[in-house]
């Protein structure tokens, strides 16, 4: 393994993040605060408890997941798309590195950034609602796995994208609806039976459910199912990336 190369890519990407640290920090704090004000205080106060949890606290895991998933995808997709766009990708392709090292560097950095945002949102949440984390270790496991798996997915989007419009297309048209319809702001059990069945085809349901379980001990789907779902998604993304580098699809002529 070329660990120096991995570390170089990682540091290079993190430098980009810290260069815009103010907006990286302020933006999630502000948007999360707004969510808590609107859904937690204004609307949430008129909503009954969900599964014995106040609505303001109930949406915390969903809000974290919403930001972590979108941040993972956007950071990872931009991270690899930008070198493609400005042409510096030649350096990666001509360097003595394999696909695992490239992925470790880019995806590692994107996942770290998303994790950072997730922690900030969690910290912000403590200012607005009373929450206790029943399974802190599992909370970290779910958070890290989500950051990694969706960063892998974002990496694929970054390689696939041929322009900035395409870069936004999948997160905007697929991921955001999936996250919103994945139980970020409600429990699946609150839906009519037909929609409950349909929701089980939404992979994000399993992530949010597992993550919420780590907070409150209550979940829409069994915890093991959530773990298998996220592990399967990670494995699928890795397989696709392996295939991309093996064939050079959209990256090597």
């Amino acid at each position: 393994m070329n660990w120096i190369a991995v570390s170089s890519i990682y540091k290079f990407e993190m430098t980009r993040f810290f260069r815009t640290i103010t907006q990286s920090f302020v933006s999630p704090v502000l948007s999360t605060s707004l969510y808590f004000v609107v859904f937690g205080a204004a609307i949430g106060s008129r909503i009954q408890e969900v599964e014995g949890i106040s609505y303001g606290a109930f949406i915390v895991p969903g809000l974290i997941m919403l930001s972590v998933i979108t941040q993972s995808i956007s950071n990872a997709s931009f991270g690899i798309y930008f070198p493609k766009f400005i042409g510096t990708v030649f350096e990666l392709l001509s360097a003595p590195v394999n696909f695992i090292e490239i992925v470790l560097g880019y995806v590692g950095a994107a996942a770290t950034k998303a994790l950072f945002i997730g922690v900030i949102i969690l910290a912000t949440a403590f200012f607005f609602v009373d929450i206790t984390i029943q399974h802190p270790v599992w909370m970290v496991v779910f958070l890290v796995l989500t950051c990694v798996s969706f960063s892998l997915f974002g990496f694929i989007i970054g390689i696939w994208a041929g322009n900035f419009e395409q870069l936004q297309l999948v997160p905007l048209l697929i991921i955001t609806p999936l996250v919103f319809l994945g139980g970020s702001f409600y429990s699946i059990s609150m839906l009519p039976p037909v929609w409950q069945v349909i929701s089980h085809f939404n992979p994000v349901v399993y992530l949010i459910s597992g993550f919420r379980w780590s907070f409150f001990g209550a979940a829409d789907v069994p915890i093991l199912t959530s773990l298998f779902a996220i592990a399967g998604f990670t494995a699928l993304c890795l397989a696709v990336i392996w295939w991309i580098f093996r064939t050079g699809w959209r990256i090597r002529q």
Partner: protein
Amino acid sequence: MPDIVEIHDLRKAYSDGFEALKGVTLNIKKGEILALLGPNGAGKTTLISTVCGITTATGGSVKVGGHDTVLDYRAARSMIGLVPQEINLEPFETVMSTVRFSRGLFGKPKNAAALEKILKQLSLWDKKDTQIRALSGGMKRRVLIAKALAHDPRVLFLDEPTAGVDVELRRDMWEIVAELKADGVTIILTTHYIEEAEAIADRIGVIAHGELLLVEDKDKLMARMGKKQLTVQLSKPIDALPASLTSDTLALSPDGESLIYTYDTRAERTGITKLLSDVAAAGLVLTDIETSQSSLEDIFVDLVKEGAV
């Protein structure tokens, strides 16, 4: 000198059927400067990209320092530095950070002294903390070279390094190339500027339509294919060559004001003495005489036009 780069029957065909490389075989000696000449679309950049791993070959093999670029790509690529044709740099990075990144990418540990030496050699040291976007085009080209040299490569590919730069910077580049050669770096450069190849290359390769037309020692090529011409200015224009002067190597200029005699300097006799006496005998009065030697550019144009040696 042993061969440091061995390219054997290298082929590259695209999905639309276009053959960018049609079986290129080329050996490059350690420590030499090889200039690859060719018109646009000849396959120069494809050849470099394929050797460096940016493009996947559809046939043939490449070895760098004895390492196959596919089977043993880590060892092969570690020896290669590449300066691309386009100025591809992240605009918001500083000079030092982008050069440091390149070194790390090739698995080399931090070495501030080595990077300082490279940046000083390229007159970039005082710009080390400047963002790339604030640099001039010439400076950006130097940064590209610095990045390519950051991991101490033994083989450096320069893909049209002086394209679009002013004469002064071009000459600076030539000096840099000469210094690298003195350090033992093997240099392969593609260029449109024939004078560049003429000035700094040890050997010349001519590529057209994906085929290597020739590779030859520059001086030998110039001597073998270079023509020398003697131009005799006449005091009065003439309509046709006098019968006594008719020869395959003598021609009348279109305006009839001068005679153009082509000869070989390596021949036992150039025929100049006889020509001048024949001209005098024919009653022609001379006003001036000048000689000229065909440049590498003339040779290159002839070769590409013929399509074969």
